Every structure is written in structure tokens, then in C-alpha cells.
């Protein structure tokens, strides 16, 4: 571990203490002795409690990214269509006609495990604020959820609470929850992952940023009052879990989606005027982090009168006000003289409005409490010169090939029924029917497809395509390849609906970075994301890192969740459902030797043979792009009638999903009916269908692209047939696919 060069040199003598602070109090605040020495060096004296609390949250892993910064900097973040990359509240891309898409994904893992309803609900609330802070109206939510094994006694309670929390918040604020993904694995027992993504749309020339400007300008607090909830949430999110985590329940915030809805409307109404100079939501570390970030980015100082902060409880202290993570609050810098206009808007929406400070040219944050100075800190050293670590890391050893013995001893119809009804393969309808996925009336493709498709109100010929993807079992086996696969799969899912993938947000969920093996997973995943982003022209524009996802020393499977955003012309989009009988079924992007080959790390290997072994399927990023570009061209030309990418469960599961969505069966003619052919998870593959009249056009376009388009069957009947052998009927498949989750939750 080494301090970054820009951290001030630290004195070696025992540092001074004051205000009742002891080394134990420092440790309770999550600061190391070295970090405390740096605090003293920055201040030139011992900090008081308020100041210590501020350093504590600002330098928490959650706020400072001190372990991950070095590697995040290596990710590709630019493209001609990127308006704002990482570093603001959310990423922004140009989507044409003067519009911008604003989006980000963020974790709320620890709070959701402790208090699933409120933890998940406030996760949604926080990510919504990140997006509308920038001037965008939120138009879609997604979520990527990882739960423990279904057999774990807590899993049912966690699923129930998290889903109700996401729905309870998202439904009330009137933003449709249109997609996401859900996995179950024992590796998440005791440390679930709740990653929430919001996508908003703004006029590209009316974006709002957080850099404060204008000495003397008023600093204004709006939204809910501040209570004692969530104090030290950011510090909690930066520590491992243990058996006493239940005691941390009071650090979980409580969400109020109704106030959030009012805050959205009030902020957007005020943003239509020229009153706002800068705006920042109060997220993790609340008032501390928002005020520091705004002043730091603007290179200014700030003075706050903390007694003017609207308070929910009596006898609150400056320490509590600075560290509270009460929800639904924003900090703004207004143009001088705009206070009355702004106050009228917030009063109309029945929200708190208080001028709590002013910008200064001192470069310092001065906190006052009824006139007396209770904190005085230099802003830049604290906000920008926070610790940055180059933590030791070990590359993840490449796993030995899997034992595939017995793979062909299982009859394929049985294997198919089991895969499509296993926890990861089963329909998640029970979940997404608890989310209002239709509000705002622009949801063109609902949950359950490859990507959600949401029409743009101000450009109604076009829509956003949205997806979240990660296969943790691949990343665990090979972080570089697994993370590249996550990016490729997001790109592929967007492509499968006909969209041009534009950019992504990453939510990096890992264990304790102080362990070299875990740090190695993180470094590998960054490498994989970088490789795939570069190859696919698919930059990272925002993201979030969640480390210390461990319980009793056991880390979660590494999970770099990727949220992808693309743009599609509605008239040239496609869905996965088989549309009619008699359509020709094509497999695109398959390796030359066979339809499918790769069983290592597959869902089949895990679910049917009970083995989690071997390396993940390799992703050929050059081929990925070529095949994807072909698929998009086929969809745009109107030559295909359905399209689906192949992922978990391989070819046969993919075809079954298309058949179930369309209510039409399929007869396949393949080289053989071996497990690897049917269930192998080779990458960059899609199944498309075409009417008999257009089948030749598909072949011609593929030939022109130098890619094979194999005819593998015809849509027909009400069952799946492989090489003349009749498999399960759609009715039986549907029962297996739709039955598992409701049955489990009722159990």
C-alpha cells in the first residue's frame, strides 16, 4: 500500500488529538492511523468531531474510490457522441435531434441486505436523483439483482422485500421499471447485490452540472428535512459484513417516493428557468459530500449556517447534520436574486427551501452553528487529495477444463425443461409484474425480451434500448474474459432489438480490495471491460464501485454489472418472439465446426451436472462486432421477423424463449443433438427468423459480410423438435418457465 504522490507528507510522531477523539474513535470512523496523520497534516492541527466525521465519509471507499481510482482511469470513456463521461452525477450521450440520454447504475447492496425494502427503495431514489440532478426527466429504471441460493433461509424474504421496495419507490414516482436481470447463487448468501439504473432524457443544451460558480452566490437546500437516518451509511458501505450487521439497521435510510416525485417536478420546473448555477443531490455522505463536491469542482470556498438546515428532529448537532443521509434532498447554487423565484417553485410543490450558505473565494469550507464556527476545512486537499491506493493484486489463475463426463447421458428434452425452469433460467415475471413498466406510455418492449425499448417523447420515431448484463460465474472463473463478456452481452442485447449500442454504465461489485486475490479480480475485470469497450466502440460514461461485499470473510462472486444504452429507429426494431409458422430459423455467428461447443462454466454444466468448473466461453471481440453489425443490418432492412441473442443455456434455451414468447413451436435440424451443440454457451451468436420469401436475402447479406448464416430449422407446431425427436410442448415449457418463481415465493 502506498500513498499517492499528491498526498501531503505525513509526520511520523504520534499525532495530536482533541475534542475527546482517541485512536479508537478514529478507528470507529473507518480511518487508518496513517489517514489520521494525513488529516492532521492537512489541517495543521487535530480535527474536532465534526471535521473527523467529514474526513471519515469523504475518504470512505464509497465516496473516495481510493482502491479503485487507479484502475477506473484506464477505462475508455470517450466517443464523438459522449457529452459527459464519468465524474459527474451521471453520464450523458447525444441521441440526436438535440436530445441527450443521461444514465447511471449504482449499488445499494449492504442496506438492502439489512433492510431489503428500504435499502432497495432508497437505491432507486438515489439513482433517480443522480439523473434528474443533471436536468433530465427520468424515463426508465432497470435493476440487476443477485440473491443467495433459493435454499438459503433468508433468500425468500430478501427477494420479497427488495422487489417490493423497488416497486414501491419506482411505481410511485411514475418512472417505468422496464428491465433488468436476476441471479441466484450461494455465493451471494449473506451479501446480495441490488444495482439500480436510471435513464433520463434532457435537452442536450440544457444540462446541469455540479461545479459551483459565482462568489457570493446563495447555496440553497431543497427537498425533505434532515433527520438522523443513515448517519455513516457511506462508511458502512465500505466495510465487510459480520454477524452483527443487523445492528447497523439504523444506518439504513428511509425513502419517501412521494417527496421524490415532487422533487423531480420542482427541479425540472426550476431548471426551465435560468435560476440554477449548479446543482448536486445529497447522496452518500449527504450534505458533506454534496457541498464539498460542488465547491471543489468550482475551485471555490463555501460557508454554511447549519442551524438553517431544515430539520426533522429536535436537538440535532452539526455532526449529525453533516453526516445524515436523509433522502430526497438537493443542494443548489442559485444565480443572485433568483431566490424568490426558486422559493415559489418549491413552495408550490410543498417542499423545504432554505438558503443555508454562500460561496466564497477562500477555498475553505466554514461551518457555523448559531454564528459560532464549528468546522473549518480546506476543500481541495480533502475532496481531491483523498488517499489513492495502488493495492497489491494477484491475477486470477486460469481454471482447469471442466469434467464434462455424463453430459450426453441426460436426454435433451429433460435438460431443456430443467434449464428453462431453474432459478436463473426461469421467467422473472413474478418480479416485473410488481413494477409499473408501462407508466408514461412509451414502453414498446416490456420486460422479458433482450432489451427494453422505450420511445422518446420528443423524438417519437426513435427509442432507447436498455439492458443490464453480467454473468458472475464467468467473471469468477476469468475476470478479464468474464467482464469482456458482460460488455459484449450488453452490446449484443441492444443489437438484438435492432439498436445501435452507444455507451454503458458499470456497477463494479467485488469483495475486500485489501486481499490481493480480490484486487486481482477487480484489475482483471477493468482490463476486460476496457478490451470490450474499445473493440465495440462502446464507452463507459458513468459507474459505481461497491467493494467489501464479503460476509465473515467470504467474498461474493465478482460482478461487474453492465448497463447498456442504445438508440433504435422504431420502424427498424425487432423482438425475440416467433411471429408465424413456416419462418426459416437461422443461426448467426456460430463457430464453423458446429452450432455450439462450449460447455465449460455453462448453465448446463452447473444445473444438470452440478459442476461449476472450467473457463468461460471466450469472446472474440472482432467477430462479436462483425456479427452484431450484420444482425443490425438485417433488422434495419426488415429482412428478419424475430431476433434473439444466445446466452445462458445456449441455442436450445434461446430458441425455446423465442417459441414461448411467440406461442409458436420450432423444428430444428442440427449436426447432432449433443449437449455441447444444444446447450453450449459459445459467444457472439444470434438466432433470427425470416419468412421463406426473405430467407435468401438473409443468406445474401450474410455472405456479403463473409459470415455464415446456417439454416437450422423452421417455426412450426406447438413443441420443440430436434432432428425429428419431439421434445417438450410449449405448454410444458411454459409451465416450467413460469412456474418456478411464483412457486418458490409461495413456499
Amino acid at each position, binding site marked *: 500500500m502506498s500513498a499517492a504522490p499528491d498526498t501531503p507528507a505525513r509526520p511520523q510522531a504520534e499525532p495530536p488529538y482533541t475534542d475527546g477523539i482517541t485512536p479508537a474513535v478514529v478507528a470507529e470512523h473507518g480511518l487508518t492511523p496513517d489517514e489520521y496523520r494525513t488529516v492532521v497534516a492537512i489541517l495543521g492541527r487535530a480535527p474536532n468531531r465534526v471535521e473527523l466525521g467529514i474526513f471519515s465519509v469523504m475518504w470512505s471507499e464509497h465516496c473516495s474510490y481510493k482502491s479503485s481510482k487507479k484502475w477506473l482511469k484506464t477505462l475508455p470513456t470517450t466517443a464523438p457522441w459522449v457529452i459527459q463521461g464519468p465524474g459527474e452525477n451521471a453520464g450523458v450521450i447525444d441521441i440526436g435531434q438535440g436530445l441527450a440520454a443521461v444514465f447511471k447504475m449504482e449499488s445499494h447492496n449492504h442496506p438492502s441486505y439489512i433492510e431489503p425494502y428500504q435499502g432497495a427503495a432508497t437505491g432507486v431514489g438515489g439513482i433517480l436523483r443522480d439523473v434528474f440532478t443533471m436536468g433530465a426527466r427520468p424515463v426508465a429504471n432497470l435493476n440487476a439483482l443477485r440473491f443467495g441460493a433459493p435454499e438459503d433461509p433468508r433468500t425468500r424474504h430478501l427477494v420479497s422485500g427488495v422487489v417490493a421496495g423497488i416497486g414501491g419507490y419506482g*411505481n*410511485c414516482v*411514475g418512472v417505468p421499471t422496464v428491465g433488468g436481470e436476476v441471479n441466484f447463487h450461494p455465493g451471494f448468501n449473506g451479501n446480495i447485490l441490488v444495482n439500480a439504473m436510471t435513464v433520463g432524457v434532457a435537452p442536450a443544451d440544457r444540462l446541469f452540472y455540479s461545479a459551483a460558480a459565482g462568489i457570493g452566490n446563495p447555496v440553497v437546500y431543497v427537498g425533505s428535512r434532515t433527520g438522523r437516518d443513515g448517519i455513516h451509511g457511506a462508511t458502512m458501505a465500505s466495510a465487510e459484513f459480520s454477524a452483527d450487521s443487523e445492528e447497523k439497521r439504523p444506518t439504513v435510510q428511509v425513502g*419517501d417516493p*412521494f417527496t421524490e416525485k415532487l422533487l423531480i417536478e420542482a427541479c425540472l420546473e426550476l431548471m426551465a428557468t435560468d435560476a440554477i448555477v449548479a446543482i448536486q443531490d445529497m447522496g452518500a455522505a449527504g450534505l458533506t459530500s454534496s457541498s464539498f463536491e460542488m465547491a471543489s469542482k468550482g475551485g471555490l470556498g463555501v460557508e454554511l449556517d447549519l442551524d438553517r438546515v431544515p430539520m426533522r428532529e429536535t436537538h440535532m448537532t452539526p455532526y449529525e447534520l453533516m453526516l445524515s443521509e436523509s433522502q430526497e434532498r438537493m443542494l443548489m447554487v442559485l444565480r443572485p436574486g433568483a431566490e424568490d423565484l426558486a422559493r415559489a417553485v418549491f413552495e408550490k*410543490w410543498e417542499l423545504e427551501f432554505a438558503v443555508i450558505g454562500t460561496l466564497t473565494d477562500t477555498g475553505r469550507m466554514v461551518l457555523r452553528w448559531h454564528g459560532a464556527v464549528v468546522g473549518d476545512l480546506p476543500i481541495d486537499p480533502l475532496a481531491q487529495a483523498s488517499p489513492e491506493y495502488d493495492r497489491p493484486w494477484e491475477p486470477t489463475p486460469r481454471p482447469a477444463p471442466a469434467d464434462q463426463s455424463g453430459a450426453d447421458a441426460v436426454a435433451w428434452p429433460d435438460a431443456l425443461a430443467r434449464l428453462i425452469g431453474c432459478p436463473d433460467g426461469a421467467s422473472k415475471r413474478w418480479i*416485473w409484474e410488481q*413494477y409499473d413498466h408501462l*407508466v408514461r*406510455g412509451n414502453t414498446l418492449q416490456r420486460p422479458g425480451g433482450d432489451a427494453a425499448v422505450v420511445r422518446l417523447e420528443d423524438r417519437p420515431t426513435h427509442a432507447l434500448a436498455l439492458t443490464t448484463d453480467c454473468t458472475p460465474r464467468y467473471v469468477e472463473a476469468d475476470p478479464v474474459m468474464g467482464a469482456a463478456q458482460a460488455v459484449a452481452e450488453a452490446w449484443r442485447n441492444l443489437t438484438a432489438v435492432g439498436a445501435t449500442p452507444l455507451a454503458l454504465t458499470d456497477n463494479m461489485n467485488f469483495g475486500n480490495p485489501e486481499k490481493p486475490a480480490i484486487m486481482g479480480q477487480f484489475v482483471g475485470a477493468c482490463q476486460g471491460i476496457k478490451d470490450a469497450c474499445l473493440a465495440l466502440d462502446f464507452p463507459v460514461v458513468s459507474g459505481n464501485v461497491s467493494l467489501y461485499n464479503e460476509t465473515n470473510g467470504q467474498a461474493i462472486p465478482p460482478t461487474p454489472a453492465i448497463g447498456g444504452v442504445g438508440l433504435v429507429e422504431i420502424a427498424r426494431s425487432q423482438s425475440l418472439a416467433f411471429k408465424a409458422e413456416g419462418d426459416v430459423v437461422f443461426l448467426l455467428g456460430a463457430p464453423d465446426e458446429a452450432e455450439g461447443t462450449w460447455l465449460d462454466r455453462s448453465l448446463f454444466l452447473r444445473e444438470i451436472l452440478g459442476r461449476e468448473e472450467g473457463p468461460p466461453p471466450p469472446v472474440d471481440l472482432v467477430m462479436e462486432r462483425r456479427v452484431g453489425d450484420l444482425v443490425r443490418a438485417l433488422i434495419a432492412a426488415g429482412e428478419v421477423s424475430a431476433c434473439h441473442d444466445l446466452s445462458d443455456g445456449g441455442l436450445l434455451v434461446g430458441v425455446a424463449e423465442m417459441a414461448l414468447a411467440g406461442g409458436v413451436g420450432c423444428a430444428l435440424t442440427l449436426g447432432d443433438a449433443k449437449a455441447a451443440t444444444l446447450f453450449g454457451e459459445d459467444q457472439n451468436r444470434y438466432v433470427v427468423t425470416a419468412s421463406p420469401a426473405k430467407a435468401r436475402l438473409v443468406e445474401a447479406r450474410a455472405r456479403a459480410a463473409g459470415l455464415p448464416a446456417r439454416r437450422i430449422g423452421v417455426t412450426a407446431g406447438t413443441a420443440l423438435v430436434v432432428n425429428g425427436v419431439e421434445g417438450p410442448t410449449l405448454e410444458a415449457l411454459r409451465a416450467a418457465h413460469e412456474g418456478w418463481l411464483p412457486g418458490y415465493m409461495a413456499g
Partner: protein
Amino acid sequence: MHAAILLFPGTNRERDMARALEVAGAPAPVFVWHRETTLPAGLDLVILPGGFSYGDYLRSGAMAARSPILEAVRRFADQGGMVLGVCNGFQILTEAGLLPGALMRNRDLRFICRCVGLRVERTDTPFTTRYAAGAVLSVPVAHHDGNYTADDDTLARLEGEGRVAFRYCDAAGVVSDATNPNGSRGNIAGIVSENRRVLGMMPHPENLVEPALGGIDGRPLFESLLEALP
């Protein structure tokens, strides 16, 4: 047609409703804020759209039913004005006493968002003339509190007077407990007032007015309104 859409704090389907009117060919509606005490002159339709007015924190629709604008809506309805309440709007109308009964938490206690079968029970209301009698629609619901209930006498009166406008059914139009998404008595999805000029319904016809959204079964309701209020 001269329509107003009411806005309460927490209303969230007002744009969907405005768009449905537009798709049906109606003139653009005006939006009326909950603190107003009068409705604009010359109105012939007031719409209470879906959402979570006041967060639904007391009971769904309870606080909105006591907001200033509701007094104006009551006077408007008393004078024969037409009122459409969808989802939270239906809840508000029952809480305000403009329609009988109440909407309780769904039978399985979960929020439900999915397309349900809906049988058109009356085509002689100004909201349903463009539907065929007995027509079976597929229209989405999106609610947590859609479980319609009323006492036996009220229910008997509603049925006796033919005031049930829509019932939850299957694709063949069969009404049964299996086709009841939320536990509503009599599978009731929508009812009209005595004079048939106030309709409250839980499903969202405004979310199914364009083929791109998955269907147009909601559109005839708006076309009926346009026919009644040219």
C-alpha cells in the same frame, strides 16, 4: 370536447392521458392544479388520472378527495358534467363519494402490472359507445389497491341498475375468480354513476391506444368520449 386533467401532488399518468386524447383526435386538454377552487369555464370533461396522490399515504385517494379542486369537481358532476377517473382517479372518486364503494389492497397484497381481460358490460354510457356489447378487451392494470368492494346493498343496487361498466374476464369473456386479478367483488373493474356520466375504472385504457404499445383496445373509450362531446 373541452377536457381538463387534474394534477395532484403525486399524479403520474397525466401525460399518458393527454396522449391518449391526442391519439383519439381530441383537442389538447388543459391541466388544472389541485389547489384551484374552480374549473375553467366551458369544460365538458374532467379527468382524474393515475398516480399516487399525496403518496397514497393515508389511504389511496383519501387526501386528494379533500383537496380544494374536488369541491369544484363535485359541483361540475352535480350539474351533469362528465368525469373520468382512472386508477388513482377512481380511488379519489370513491373517497370523494362521487362513486360508491372503495378500493382495498389487492387480494395477494402485491402491486400488479399486467394486461388483463376486460368485458364491456354497457355500451350505453358516453364512455363505451364505440365498443361492441360484450366485447373483450386486453388492457393493462397497474395498481396496489384495486380490490373493489362495497356493501351488499350497494352492490345489489349497482348490479340492478346496470352500473358495472367493465369486469375482469378471460380471453373468451368468461368472468370467474380465476380471471380476477385483485379480488374485486363481482370482478368489477369499473362503475358509472347513476346518471352514467361519471366513470371510475382501475385499468388503464390510456396505455393501450397505439399498436406500438402493444394494442389499441383502450382507444374506443376515448373515441366514445369524442363522440359524446363533439
